[in-house]
C-alpha cells in the first residue's frame, strides 16, 4: 500500500514484537495492550460492519465472553483455557439465535441494528439482574490464582500480556485478510447491495450472512474474555451493554470501516482521546468522551464516511474522496 506491503508487514510485526523488550514503561505498555485488545474487538465488529451488517449487539457478545469466562473460573474453578471456548460457544449460540430469524425473515438495515440493540440491552439486564452472581453494576473480579499462572491465564508481567494481545490482534488481521481474498467477500459485497440478485447468482444468502455473523461474534467474545483476564475487573459499563456497542461503531467509523487497519486506527484514536480527557480534566470530565464521540460520529459520517485511514489510503492512491463515497455507502 504505502510501502511495498511485502516488506512493510514483516518489519512492522518484528518491531512490535521487539518493543516490550526495549521499552518497558508500564503505563505506556498498559495503553498499548488495551489498544491491541480493543483493536481486535473493533476488527471483529467490522467483519460484519463492512458488509452493511450494522450490529449494535456486539457489546452483548463481548459481555458474554468476559462474564462466562470469569463466572466459570470463580464458581467452578474452570480454567479460562476451557472457560473461554465455552464462552465462545455461548456467544456463537446467542449470535445464531438472534441472527437466524433476522436473516431468514429479511430483517435488514436499520431494523437489524434495532434487533441487535435489544440484544445488547438484554445481556446488560441479565448481568445486572443476576447481581448475586455477577456483582451487577458494581462489577466483577476473577479470583486471583494461588496456583499456576498459566492455567489461570493470569500474568503479572505486562510483557506477557502485550505479546498475547499482539498475537490475537494479528490473528484478527489475518482472518480479515483471508476473508478479503475469499469468494465469501464477493458474496457478502453482493448481498450488501442486493440480496435477490445475490441469490440469483447462486449465493445462499442466509448462510453467508450467518457465517460472517458467527465469526464476528466469536472474535468479539474472545476480546471480552481477554479484556477480563488482563484487567481482572469487568463491569457492565466496560465490556457489555449499549455503550460498548456504540463505542465499537464510533471507533470503526472514525478509523475506517473498509480497510484492514481502520478499526485499529479507530482504537488508537478513541483510547488516546479517553486517556487525554482523563489526564487533563480528571474526574470533571467523566462522560465527556461520550459527548466528544457523539459529535465526532456525526461529523465523520457526513464528511469522512470512509474514516481516517480509508480516506488517507484513497488520497495516496489518488482517488477523490467524494467520488468513492458515492460508490460505497455505509
Amino acid at each position, binding site marked *: 500500500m504505502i510501502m511495498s506491503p511485502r516488506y512493510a508487514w514483516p518489519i512492522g510485526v518484528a518491531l512490535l514484537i521487539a518493543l516490550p523488550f526495549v521499552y518497558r514503561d508500564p503505563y505506556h505498555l498498559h495503553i498499548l495492550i488495551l489498544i491491541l485488545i480493543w483493536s481486535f474487538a473493533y476488527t471483529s465488529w467490522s467483519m460484519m460492519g463492512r458488509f452493511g451488517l450494522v450490529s449494535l449487539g456486539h457489546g452483548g457478545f463481548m459481555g458474554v465472553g468476559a462474564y462466562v469466562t470469569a463466572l466459570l473460573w470463580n464458581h467452578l474453578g474452570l480454567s479460562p483455557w476451557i472457560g473461554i471456548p465455552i464462552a465462545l460457544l455461548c456467544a456463537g449460540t446467542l449470535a445464531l439465535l438472534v441472527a437466524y430469524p433476522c436473516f431468514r425473515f429479511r430483517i435488514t438495515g436499520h431494523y437489524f441494528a434495532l434487533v441487535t440493540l435489544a440484544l445488547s440491552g438484554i445481556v446488560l439486564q441479565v448481568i445486572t439482574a443476576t447481581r448475586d452472581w455477577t456483582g451487577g453494576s458494581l462489577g466483577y473480579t476473577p479470583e486471583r490464582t494461588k496456583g499456576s499462572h498459566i492455567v489461570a491465564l493470569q500474568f503479572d508481567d505486562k510483557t506477557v500480556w502485550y505479546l498475547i494481545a499482539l498475537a490475537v490482534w494479528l490473528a484478527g488481521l489475518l482472518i480479515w485478510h483471508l476473508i478479503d481474498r475469499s469468494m465469501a467477500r*464477493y458474496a457478502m459485497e453482493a448481498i450488501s447491495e442486493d440480496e435477490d440478485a445475490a441469490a*440469483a447468482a447462486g449465493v445462499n444468502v442466509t448462510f453467508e450472512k450467518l457465517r460472517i455473523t458467527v465469526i464476528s461474534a466469536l472474535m468479539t467474545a474472545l476480546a471480552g474474555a481477554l479484556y477480563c483476564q488482563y484487567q481482572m475487573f469487568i463491569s457492565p459499563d466496560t465490556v457489555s451493554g449499549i455503550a460498548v456497542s456504540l463505542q465499537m461503531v464510533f471507533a470503526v467509523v472514525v478509523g475506517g470501516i473498509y480497510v484492514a487497519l481502520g478499526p485499529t486506527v479507530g482504537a488508537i484514536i478513541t483510547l488516546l482521546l479517553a486517556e487525554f480527557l482523563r489526564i487533563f480534566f480528571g474526574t470533571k470530565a467523566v462522560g465527556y468522551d461520550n459527548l466528544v464521540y457523539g459529535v465526532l460520529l456525526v461529523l465523520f459520517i457526513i464528511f469522512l464516511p470512509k474514516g481516517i485511514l480509508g480516506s488517507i489510503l484513497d488520497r495516496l492512491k489518488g482517488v477523490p474522496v467524494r467520488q468513492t463515497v458515492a460508490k460505497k455507502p455505509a
Partner: protein
Amino acid sequence: MLVVEGLVKRFGGFTAVNNVSFKVDQGEILGLIGPNGSGKSTIFNMLSGTFPPSAGSITFEGHEIAGLAPHRIINRGIGRTFQIPRPFRRLTIFENVELAGFYGQGGNRGSHSRAKADEAAEKALAMVGLPTDRQAPVDGLGAAGLKKLELAKALATGPKLLLADESLGGLDEHEMDQAADMLRKIRDELGITIIWVEHIMGVLMRVVDRVMVLDHGEKISEGLPSAVSSDPKVIEVYLGTDADATQAAAAEQRR
C-alpha cells in the same frame, strides 16, 4: 425438460397467476409475452425460487422444484436475468461473473474451485462480448453493457435452462437485434434451453420456436409465432391495447 402444472400465485386477494400450465422442451426457445401486469415476471419469480407458488407444481428434469430456495434452483441448472439489470457495483465486471460462476455451480460444496469459476466467468464474458479484463469497473457500462453483464452472470452459473427477463427494454433497434441474435447463439452454441419474457413482440417473434401469451394471469394462447400473432384473442388483448406492441408492429413493418 420443464413441466409446469396448474401454477397459481395469489398476493392477498389478488391472483397474479391463475392456473397456468406449460411445457418446455430441451433445446427450444419459448417466448413468453403479455401486457404489463399479465403475470410474466411472477411466473419467472416462481420458477427461480424468489417466492413459492400458492399452488401447482414445477418439475425440472423430473424433480419437483416448486418452493426451493433460489440458490438451490440455480444449482440445479436454472439461471435467470432480471428485467432491470442488477449488477454488484462494489465488484468489478469480472468479479460479478466470477461470483456467479463460483456459487452458481455449487459454491463451497464439492470440489468446485475458484479456478473453475474463473474459467466459467471468462467463457461467459467472451460469449456475451464483454472484456475479460479483471479490473474493469461496472460503472463504465451503459444500458446495453449492463444487460450483457446480466446475461454473463446467468450464463456463468452453468444453466441448462435460462430464464431471460425482458432483456431488450431500454435498447435501440440495432442493440435489440444483437441481443436477440445473442440468445439464439446461446441456444445454438451452448445448447441452453431458454424461456424469454419480453414486451417487444417483433424481435421476439423472429427468434423463438414457440410463444405463450398471458393476460391477467391466464394463458390465452400458445403455439408457433405465426399462428399466435394471428390469433384474434391475442390481437384483441395484446396488440390492440399495448403501446409497446403497436410500436413493435410498426418496427416489424419497417424491417
